[in-house]
């Protein structure tokens, strides 16, 4: 699924460089626990989370996650945006709950990790 399609489905504001809009994610993972995100070894993962801090971006950097949706209307700080840009991570901000965002993406064909 194209990142631009994700942002459309979730009415999400997209914060990333333009060339990133075209890349694909195949698998979704919804969690507020970075401890769990670090145990995954899945490529092309979209992280759906309400945990909105610098450590979320760091975790994505280490886990090779290139796309994050912040749910429940959480806003990324300028520091987070700068770190994400530095590492080619695309950030989206959705007004939906984690449940609604996950449901919409699942329906649209995004696969679960397990």
């Amino acid at each position, binding site marked *: 699924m194209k990142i631009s399609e994700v942002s459309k489905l979730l009415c999400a504001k997209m914060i990333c460089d333009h060339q990133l809009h075209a890349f694909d994610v195949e698998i979704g993972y919804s969690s507020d*626990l970075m*401890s*769990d995100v*670090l*145990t995954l070894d899945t490529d092309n993962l979209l992280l759906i989370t309400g945990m909105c801090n610098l*450590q979320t971006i*760091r*975790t994505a950097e*280490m886990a*090779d996650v290139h796309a994050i949706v912040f749910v429940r209307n959480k806003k990324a700080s300028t520091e987070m945006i700068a770190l994400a840009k530095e590492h080619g991570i695309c950030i989206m901000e959705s007004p939906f709950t984690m449940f609604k965002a996950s449901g919409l993406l699942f329906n649209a064909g995004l696969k679960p990790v397990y």
Partner: protein
Amino acid sequence: MELNFSIEGGDFTQAGQASSRVKKVLKQLGVDPKCIKSIVIALYEAEVNVVAHAHRGQIRIQIEKDKIITIIEDEGPGIPDIALAMQEGFSTASKKVREMGFGAGMGLPNIKKNTNELQIDSVVGESTTVKMVNYF
């Protein structure tokens, strides 16, 4: 090649500085991406553990032709029962740590999974030393 870092306990914004740097260096050296990911995840978990559980720490990294050796030494409460701490789900993390998205008791098992050699030594009330080796 040698790299050194220091970490302050409690300062979550610092966790990831060493792993981020190491990731860049290993990429430049052309190490296999899967291998880089394991090394970086293990180092990041160890960094977060110092920030979450200890007072301050030192990281010493040695990159050789065929392997990377990382030693993370901290001053802190130490680990009374290392075997217990290695179990998935065991955590003494504070509320503050949990609010940051950590403290599920998954870090040490994840370090084990992502390293070729792991040795943890601790003196209760004083220090913890984590030594990790990964072969390229």
